[in-house]
């Protein structure tokens, strides 16, 4: 297990290095002068010179890269081009909103998707299985930004049951939870379908295994067979899916964050791209990538812990 852990950490580090290289190149690959792009066409020569000095643009490219990597490794992601605030501080202000949205979205999807998948497998070919199948494919097919817009139009604009924008009153957890409902619904809906399909397929395979037949022969209660024996094994591929889902949601929350005007990492990166605020784009993408790698690593380790065969596969 330790060797597996070391290998996985090494692989993760390699991915982070590759991401740093790509992010650094971003600034130099975009056509045009980085300072003019960031500060606007009519920036004064003094402002351009200040920006160039701040971003070390007057240094050779290899030196700029070393400075960037060195700073990133110490947690210094630079400063916001406009406000001079540390990028790390700006990201930390937003990351909680993104994580709470991801957990809420994936949380409700798991609560509904996994039992639905179990039920569909256990009731194979029943009307419930068919309905679940159709709904699952339906929810997977509809993109989350469309669900966001529909949810907003129906529940906020037409019915006015739920708030349309923002993350709620700072310090008021109840208000913040209410502001989380629509975006969490929007980003979690397709995951209900994914999880239901995945769990159903895994369960069908597992429920045909001999140990399940033995459990039945011993007269164990169906609920115990399904949740205690079947789901325990069938959940393994689902954990991988959930891990990747968490990681993917960290970046794909951008649509919900934009549509519901919620603060978060995705919206921060999007706004910074629009404003050509490169230090925030670089820092935001690096942190989002780091989180993705972390979550996938945790899910891989969890599976390796649950299933010894996986440890030999790297």
């Amino acid at each position, binding site marked *: 297990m330790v060797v597996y852990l070391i290998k996985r950490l090494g692989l993760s580090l390699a991915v982070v290095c590759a991401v740093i290289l790509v992010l650094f190149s971003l600034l130099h690959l975009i056509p*045009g002068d980085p300072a*003019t792009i960031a500060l*606007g066409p009519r920036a004064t020569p003094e402002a351009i010179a200040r920006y160039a000095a701040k971003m070390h643009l007057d240094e050779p490219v290899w030196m700029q890269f070393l400075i960037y990597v060195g700073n990133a490794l110490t947690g210094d992601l630079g400063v916001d081009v406009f406000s001079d605030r540390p990028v790390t501080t700006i990201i930390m202000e937003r990351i909680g909103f993104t994580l709470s949205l991801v957990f809420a979205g994936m949380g409700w999807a798991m609560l509904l998707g996994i039992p639905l998948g179990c039920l569909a497998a256990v009731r194979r070919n029943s009307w419930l299985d068919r309905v679940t199948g159709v709904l699952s494919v339906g929810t997977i097919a509809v993109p989350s930004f469309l669900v966001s817009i529909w949810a907003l139009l129906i529940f906020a604009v037409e019915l006015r049951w739920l708030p349309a924008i923002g993350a709620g009153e*700072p310090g008021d957890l109840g208000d913040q939870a209410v502001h989380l409902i629509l975006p969490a619904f929007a980003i979690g809906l397709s995951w209900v379908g994914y999880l239901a399909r995945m769990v159903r397929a895994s369960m069908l395979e597992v429920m045909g295994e001999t140990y399940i037949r033995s459990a039945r022969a011993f007269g164990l209660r*169906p609920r115990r067979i399904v949740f205690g024996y079947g789901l325990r094994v069938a959940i393994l591929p689902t954990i991988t899916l959930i891990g990747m889902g968490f990681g993917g949601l960290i970046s794909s929350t951008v649509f919900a964050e934009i549509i519901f005007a919620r603060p978060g990492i995705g919206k921060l990166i999007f706004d910074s791209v629009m404003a050509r605020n490169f230090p925030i784009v670089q820092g935001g993408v690096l942190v989002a990538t780091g989180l993705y790698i972390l979550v996938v690593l945790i899910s891989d380790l969890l599976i390796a812990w649950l299933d010894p065969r996986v440890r030999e596969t790297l």
Partner: protein
Amino acid sequence: MTKPTLSRRAFLASSVAVAGTAGLMPAWPTPAHAQMGKVLRLRLDGDPDVLDPGYMSGGIEIEAQKQCLPFLADYHRDGDTITWKKTPFANRLEQRDPTHIDFELAEGLEWSDGYGPVTAADVKYSYERMKGTDWSGYFEALDHVEVTGDRTGTIVLNKPFSPFIMVTLCHGPGAILSEKAMKDVGEKFTTEFPAVCGPYTYSATPGQRVVYDLNPQWSGPKPGFERVECNVITQVKAAELAFEAGELDCTELGADTLARYTAEMPEGAEITTAGELQYMWLGMNTDHPKLKDKTVRRAIQHAVDVDAILQGAYSGTTTKSNGIICPGLIGRREDTKHYRYDPAKARELLAEAGISDLDLTLRTLNTQERMLAAQIIQANLAGLGINVKVLPLDSGPYWEMGQESKGDTWKELELWLMRYGTTPDPYEATQWFVSDQVGVWNWERWTDPEYDRLYEAGIKETDPQKRHEIYVRMQEIMEETGAYVWINHEPEAFVHSAEVKINAAPSGELNYRRCKPA
């Protein structure tokens, strides 16, 4: 052997429990529009990053300054004309002669945080400091500020510069700062005011909102609302939906929504247009071999159907342009002089130039409206036998393409769609086309001694009628070069609750303290 089953009843019971929990959630209060006179809910298109007038980006930062810092003058709409008047911070603001502006600050103005009264020395410090900042261009004409008393002084200009009050004092750079507070923060600040003096105090939650609460030390006229909450909503569409959901009292509108609302206004809503201080045109490079012949350029002027662009790309929500001077300003022209849409005349001119086959590239910023406008021009010119290739560009290369200091693209530049913004004085729009701007912002690359002479005259002239004539003539000279097809002026339009009367500067910055319950 029995088939294992998960009881459907048990599953449904769980589902009902979940649904029931959701159903038991309290009925959320329907968001209503502003409790009148209490809270005004607005939209910000981003976080204010630099509140310092010397280093700000503008826009929302100017909005913040207008609530929390003193200004000597503010924009005023007099019928269709935009002019200025003194603010409650000043008892007196008078142009004594072309280079002297006398002022007297109002009594009882106090800085927050114990920084004492607002003095003429603060005015001197603030304006003279601006000469060394990113916004120094606005203070080029300032020589110095003479302090004649605690609250009185004279702004001394180094040359006659009639737009100084409109362009500089009314706009963001005209904000006054506390000298003592500035010295305490190292003479520069970003996201917190070192000291405020105005009807509101300022507090921001980055990424979420900015809140303005009543300033207890403010002794001037009471603002219309006790509190102003500005939500950070970067996308205009999201803000429009928030307005429709009743969570905002006012928001800026995009061109397509403006058209939709104009056709069918939401219940209880009104639209207010702040100003139209943007001017867009089709530009032609007079130095390019394909366009060097003025007759070819004049043919293109006659071939472009501007009305079709206004309808097709802007849904009829913008004002047709006849030059670079925007509606409401001195020098605005009522019509073009040297061309109008006439395809037959265009063909005739092209034949006269001996052109039968011409390939041109039209460069444009890659936004939806501009792309549509470019396609309409492409179709118009195709009717003339001119084959136009539309080249959409990102803002980086787009803003560099005509600048000699940024490479050689200016040599290949043929046609382009361009839009500039301006302040409410004709001087600013005309400055980009003088001879020394060729290869900088005058991408059409023509020069005219009369234009340069009139530019200097317009700055010095204080008589509005004479200024009008000067600026009309300058636009005629531009049009006569054949290098321009004037397109439109886009409005800064706001939709707001009919129960709120909003106030916005012509350039689109809302002035919260002048907003009132209707």
